[in-house]
């Protein structure tokens, strides 16, 4: 089917049916990664650039493997190793890479809107792999894929997202996606990291994790960045952990079949106690696995794999 977007910049730009299309497409790619020969020729001859201005292992590798399993050629550029450190502007970096005629450029950047800016002058398909505190669409999509895998559908699921909401692109993309898919979302965190304007996104806010977790189907924990305490968003990691860490005891208040999600990397013993991180209720590693299928789907839909039979 035709996917009308040239770029994947954010969940905000997608409709519920487009999200479903991506998830359905990912479904059909999921199995490839379980084969003996994990490769199909779907995107043979396509060139993809993985341009990362922030450190990342999981996301960058996931994109890279997804591209390789579709037989695309993919090149990694890291900002500290590239000419950005020599003073080249972001725009010039993109234009120089474009001179090499890639088909798609995956961009992760610490500045919100950097990928949107790139899309204003770039010929390539731009895929947002995280722009500042704005969006991380493929993470939300792989989270959605995982939720659908576990819970079948989104309607009326009670989902709580816990942690540093203010600075989280994962939270934003998930808020937009889960809202479009009909889930009920509650955001939980200390007030300085949970401004009340977030209510306008159609979610509930709660400063009290013990109350919010009551009856939850999905508990999505966010990484708490350790340096935030220096800016007084909360007094100390110790105090944060006491109030907002997910422990086995707290998790018992959620639904019996509730699951635990986390976009990674986790801070063991900070937002998640070790017993919880490794529990059978955790689908954190499933999320990582599903990331490949979802990113394969995104490549396929954007780069127009002509022939479905090539991999069916």
């Amino acid at each position, binding site marked *: 089917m035709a996917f009308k977007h040239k770029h994947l910049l954010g969940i905000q730009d997608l409709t519920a049916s487009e999200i479903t299309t991506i998830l359905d497409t990912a479904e059909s790619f999921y199995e490839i990664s379980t084969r003996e020969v994990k490769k199909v020729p779907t995107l043979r001859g396509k060139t993809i650039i993985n341009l990362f201005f922030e450190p990342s292992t999981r996301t960058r590798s996931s994109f890279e493997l997804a591209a390789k399993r579709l037989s695309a050629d993919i090149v990694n550029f890291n900002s500290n190793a590239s000419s950005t450190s020599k003073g080249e*502007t*972001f*725009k010039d970096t993109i234009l120089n890479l474009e001179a090499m005629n890639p088909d798609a450029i995956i961009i992760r*950047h*610490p*500045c*919100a*809107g*950097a990928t*949107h*800016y790139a899309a*204003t002058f770039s010929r390539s398909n731009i895929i947002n792999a995280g*722009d*500042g*505190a*704005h*969006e991380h669409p493929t993470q939300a999509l792989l989270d959605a894929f995982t939720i659908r895998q576990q819970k079948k559908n989104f309607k009326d699921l009670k989902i709580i997202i816990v942690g540093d909401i*203010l600075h989280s*692109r994962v939270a*934003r993309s998930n808020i937009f996606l889960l809202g479009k898919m009909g889930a009920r979302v509650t955001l939980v965190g200390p007030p300085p990291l949970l*401004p009340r*304007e*977030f209510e*306008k*996104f159609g979610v509930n806010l709660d400063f009290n994790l013990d109350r919010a977790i009551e009856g939850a189907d999905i508990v999505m924990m966010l990484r708490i960045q350790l340096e935030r305490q220096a800016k007084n968003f909360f007094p100390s990691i110790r105090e944060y952990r006491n109030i907002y860490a997910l422990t086995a005891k707290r998790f018992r208040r959620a639904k019996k079949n509730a699951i635990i999600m986390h976009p990674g990397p986790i801070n063991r013993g900070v937002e998640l106690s070790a017993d919880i991180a490794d529990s059978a209720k955790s689908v954190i590693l499933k999320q990582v696995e599903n990331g490949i299928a979802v990113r394969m789907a995104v490549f396929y839909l954007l780069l127009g794999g002509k022939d479905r039979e090539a991999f069916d």
Partner: protein
Amino acid sequence: MKLLIKNGRVVDPSSGLDKTIDVLIDKGKIAAIKPNIRASGAKIIDASRLVVAPGFIDMHVHLREPGQEEKETLSTGALAAARGGFTSIACMPNTEPVNDNRGVTEYILSEAKKNAVVNIFPVASITRRQLGEELTDMADLNDAGAVAFSDDGFPVQNAQVMRRALEYSKILSTIIIDHCEDKNLSAEGVMHEGYHSYLFGLKGIPSSSEEVMVSRDIILAQRADSPVHIAHLSTKGATELVRDAKRKKVKITAEVTPHHLFLTDSSLENYDTSYKVNPPLRSKEDAQALIRAVKDGIIDAIATDHAPHTVDDKSVEFDKAPFGINGLETAVSLCLDRLVNAKVISLHKFIKMISFNPALILGLENKGRIQVGADADLTLLNLRQEIVVDINTFKSKGRNNPFHGWKLKGAPQMTIVGGKVVYSSSPSRSSQ
């Protein structure tokens, strides 16, 4: 050389004059304001269907010279001002070096005299190198020609320093202008903090960063019994503070920019850096409150905060772009269209806010009025002319203006400084 402006609708807020009448200019001064003036040898300007206003004064611009001539110079800034209908502009001290000593003030004035087509009035810094610590030699700077003092983009954070500046300035014929921003609250913010900053994932500058400082300045100015002028008011809360202070007879005045009146934070959805400005474009509610404050007379002046940047400066990620909107060449048309032609305020009131009041605040005695003996600085307006903003036609070196493409009704037609025509959109109007 005499100049005779015939049949214009002369509007002068200082005297309340509003009628079709002639104005004769001789030796750079207004020589007569009468019907049917005949003056042999005078160059005649046909101002029929035009408004003849006292020359517009922009009390808040950045001209970048000395130090950042790639962004703007006194010469190009003055050309932009003339095209925008301004006959006088007051330039902020954040140059390189900072205008914190007589040498820089004199340099600006002497370069302006040589190269600028409009009057340029330097604003000196309150503190040395705008560091917020030690006061500049304010009397010496005032004597050299500084008309006001401000640390503008690097506002004085230490309340004791601001208190001393307000107290000390009482011995001078000058005023303190404050860009009200608590730098701890604004931190690394790049846009107004609120729903849209959370939506776009950009760091916010809360309204409180402005309001805390406006409150502080009101308290200090009241205690010192010294005048203070609040630059580019941007929040609803700040307009309420100024309203209360005026009621209590605090010597406070305030300005607003066209962009804070006519744009809001939702415009940043495409991360277009031409909308990045400090104070940031606020919410719709704030913009509405500012317009109400203009109507109510709480805001005294319209100023542009003209802040030119090169295209390269702004062709970067939103977080990395410098703050600033290039405003000199769009302010008058925006206000004529959105305020005057939209009947939000009268033409008389608009001219008061953009000419008479700034002259009063800056103590420019012979400006901002059309009276015999006053400086022959005049702005001629065509209220019906329709224009489309095109940044590529700017006289300014900067192109960072978010109003590109806007269709506006009303435009400056001719700008006269000291009896000399420095800008005319239709040269055919004058004859011998």
